[in-house]
């Protein structure tokens, strides 16, 4: 249950119609796996921590570099050279000492993905490459937990929420297509927008509020300041989720 301090801390969101102390208790109980503590992972983690998610499990194998600081707002100049997960945990603990932060400084691989995600209720995809995104998509399907996709390039970003067996997955969307991992242009406000959309989706999923971004790819064009939605249907031949029965839910 919520303490007096928690009731005061989260008062403004508890006031939201349909949210209440019950919604806050659901957030407190939740375990969220954030894959990546970079441009997308930073805003997603900050707002999920501020909202009172009980456990944030953050995975990233990188160390902080000067060129990260235009967008990866969890990391500051004093953190350069240190592990991103340690830097992230230090800031998030200061932001909200009442939540649990677990850090994983390992590379997410085919061999360890299932173990690293562990008993998390969902996966936030804040990665910087497609192969690991596909791997996490498969892991979410295997565990039958939601997958919250986000990606950025320059002033452009996109997001989609995947509920395995009920909505299109990342492989349904991109058909397994791949592009080489390369240095990409980005301005910090773009992952801020997309990371916050991912965090919004996570909060909605956990509390049961609103309509999720499932079966829809939301595209953000910051230069035109325009959001566009594309319909994405499940692919019956999808190599990853095609065999899942419609409506299967944990």
């Amino acid at each position, binding site marked *: 249950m919520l303490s007096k301090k928690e009731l005061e801390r989260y008062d403004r969101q508890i006031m939201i119609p349909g949210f209440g102390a019950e919604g806050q208790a659901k957030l407190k109980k939740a375990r969220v796996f954030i894959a990546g503590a970079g441009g*997308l992972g930073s805003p997603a983690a900050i707002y999920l921590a501020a909202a009172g998610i009980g456990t944030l499990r953050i995975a990233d194998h990188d160390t902080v570099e000067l060129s990260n600081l235009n967008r990866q707002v969890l990391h500051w100049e004093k953190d350069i050279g240190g592990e991103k997960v340690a830097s992230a945990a230090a800031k998030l603990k200061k932001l909200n000492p009442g939540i649990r932060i677990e850090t994983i400084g390992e590379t997410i691989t085919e061999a360890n993905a299932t173990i690293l995600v562990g008993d998390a209720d969902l996966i936030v995809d804040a990665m910087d490459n*497609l192969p690991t995104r596909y791997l996490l998509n498969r892991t979410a399907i295997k565990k039958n937990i939601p997958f919250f996709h986000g990606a950025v390039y*320059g002033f452009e*970003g996109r997001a989609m929420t995947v509920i395995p067996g009920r909505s299109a997955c990342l492989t349904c969307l991109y*058909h397994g297509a791949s592009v080489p991992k390369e240095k990409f242009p*980005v301005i910090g406000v773009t992952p801020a927008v997309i990371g916050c959309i991912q965090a919004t989706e996570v909060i909605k999923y956990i509390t049961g509020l609103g309509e999720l971004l499932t079966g829809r790819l939301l595209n953000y064009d910051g230069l*035109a300041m325009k959001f566009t939605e*594309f319909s994405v249907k499940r692919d019956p031949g999808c190599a990853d989720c095609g065999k899942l029965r419609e409506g299967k839910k944990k």
Partner: protein
Amino acid sequence: MSVDIEFSSIFAKYTNNQTDIKSQGKTVGECLRDLSRQYPEFGQLILDKSGDLSPSFDIFINGESVYPDTMTHAVKDGDKINIVLLIHGG
């Protein structure tokens, strides 16, 4: 058939700062090749040497995917084709 082709602002430098171009053709492929004739630099990005869609791009017609028969998909007057870059940055 006359269709509207829309794409992100990041490509506007190839199209005289426009992100909505009129194009002609009976199929998606014909419309994209017409776009490529109008703006060859953009065409080189979205189409490979054999005139097929580059794997770095996806196409939506009136907001819906028509994969896998994307290039041969028939279009009608007024259809909107969105060209979407496959992005993966985080």
